[in-house]
């Protein structure tokens, strides 16, 4: 098993790609001085923006969990005409350009559209509100949760549920006693992916709600208004949050593979 040319081409490509990804990120992390980092996090506006990012993304993940789980389970267990279509629709938000998502949401929530009028009568504002941010983050994040949960459910043999039913458990009983414990980790991974996607979103949010300002919008504003140096510290803080979420996700996914 000598190392041939093919091996060295692979290694070279690997080194180039890793450097391409890591060098900018590491540079970003070491760029601001520690005092600057500290000063930034003491700034009330920055803290508010980070809080907006985390709370709206968390809400989007929760909504995806509640509404997405039954649909994911249904798709994992049933084959029917139109299933491919439904799966395609669920994947749609992933490929839609980010500002277009914002434009699309605004186009149905304005006063000219019946949905917008119903929302208005209910006192729900989308443009420039927390609710609006949560709506667009759910839109972009939900496919990640549904797909992860669906894969988790698909990995469980339907036969194991059949056995549970033959032993006397109903469908709902089987779901909570067998399916949920076995799919728990996949569902958690889905929630985290949805969260990560929601926190990283900028293009759709900046259209629907420039204020209340979330962290990505604040980075953009500071970059535009004051230049690169002033946007660095808050970028680093947001990056650290994203990396922490990613790390949790990676640890979960490694355990899944280890157990399988």
């Amino acid at each position, binding site marked *: 098993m000598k190392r041939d040319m093919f091996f060295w081409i692979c290694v070279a490509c690997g080194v180039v790609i890793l450097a391409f990804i890591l060098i900018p990120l590491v540079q970003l992390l070491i760029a601001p001085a520690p005092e600057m980092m500290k000063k930034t996090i003491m700034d009330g506006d920055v803290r508010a923006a980070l809080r907006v990012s985390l709370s709206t993304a968390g809400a989007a993940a929760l909504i995806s969990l509640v509404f997405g789980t039954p649909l994911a389970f249904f798709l994992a267990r049933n*084959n029917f005409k139109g299933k491919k279509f439904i799966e395609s629709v669920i994947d749609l938000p992933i490929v839609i350009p980010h500002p277009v998502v914002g434009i699309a949401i605004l186009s149905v929530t304005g006063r000219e559209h019946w949905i917008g009028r119903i929302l208005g009568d209910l006192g729900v504002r989308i443009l420039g509100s927390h609710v609006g941010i949560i709506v667009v983050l759910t839109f972009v994040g939900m496919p990640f949760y549904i797909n992860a949960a669906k894969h988790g459910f698909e990995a469980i*043999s339907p*036969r*194991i549920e*059949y*056995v*549970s*039913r*033959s*032993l*006397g*458990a*109903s469908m709902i*009983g089987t779901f909570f*006693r*067998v399916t949920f*414990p*076995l799919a728990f980790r996949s569902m958690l991974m889905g929630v985290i992916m949805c969260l990560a996607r929601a926190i990283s979103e900028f293009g759709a949010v900046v259209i629907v709600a420039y204020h209340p300002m979330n962290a990505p919008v604040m980075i953009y504003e500071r970059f535009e208004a004051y230049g690169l140096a002033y946007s660095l510290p808050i970028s680093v803080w947001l990056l650290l949050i994203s990396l922490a979420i990613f790390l949790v996700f990676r640890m979960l996914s490694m355990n899944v593979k280890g157990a399988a």
Partner: protein
Amino acid sequence: MIVIENLCVKLPGFSLSDINLRIKKNDFFVLLGPSGAGKTVLLEAIAGLVKTAAGTIRVNDRDISRLAPEKRGIGIVYQDCCLFPHLNVRENIEYGLSYHKIEAARAAELFGVLVDKLGLGRLLDRKTISLSGGERQRVAIARALMIEPAVVLLDEPLSAIDPQFRAELQHQMKRLHHSTRTTFIMVTHNFSEALSLATSAAIINGGRIEQQGDLMEIFKRPCSRFVADFVGMKNVFQAAFEKSLARVNGISVHTGAEASSRKGYIAIRPEDIVLSVTRLDSSIRNSFMGTVDSVIDKGFTCEVCVSVGDTVFNSLITRSALVDLGIEPGRELFVSFKATAVHSF
């Protein structure tokens, strides 16, 4: 008594048509068929796990065909066991108890019997992931029997197990069947496994029941070419019948009875064919001189192919007989079989 009438199942790319079965209470019934014959689908239809297109299933005169699986009282044991991986062995076996009104004392007694008969005593606190194939299968059987179902369906329980341990589990299943009042319906594609466990059986192929009845009867009198091939009837020849004679490639074979049709098949089990160096002076009516084509060693027994004209007879003999007769390719000898061993259809 389990009565299945006109059962049909339509799945994409596969269907079960018009299944009729009658299985006696407390029977050990075997469903035999090649892979892809629809055996597992039929079990799942009985258990209510796949949708049936038509037909009824009655267990002890109760029509269960429209009931949810959890209301049918039918246990199922899959080939791949399907143990609950997040529960230990004891929790697996006791899983169904909470859904059934079984007295605690009765449950404890039954648990003891199953654990004892299946040799699970030392495994109760183990995680299922650490079990061997045979252990997993025994846990799955105990779990299914723990709720005292009217019927338990076994989907090739022996095939995923190392050959060394098969005999033991076979033995345990036989004893378990004797000690419960549950009807066992087992699926297999292995005829000798079926012979060791069951007395009655059905042969299924391509989604249809080909034959059903007493197992030895099926073995001896297959009703179709497929059944004959499947149960190991190697000597199946096309024949033209004249009274009690069958003409096969110019050879006249005596059969035990007059044929009802003019054309058909005859079949002779390889172990019913006797080989000898001299013509046998006996009550045997069919005796032909032939040449040994080949000898296939099967371990304890040997399969000898002998050409008589254009017809090749397949005979199964023991190894010692092979040596005693000095059989080797090219040697001439006599092929003999009784008229009653010839089965025509």
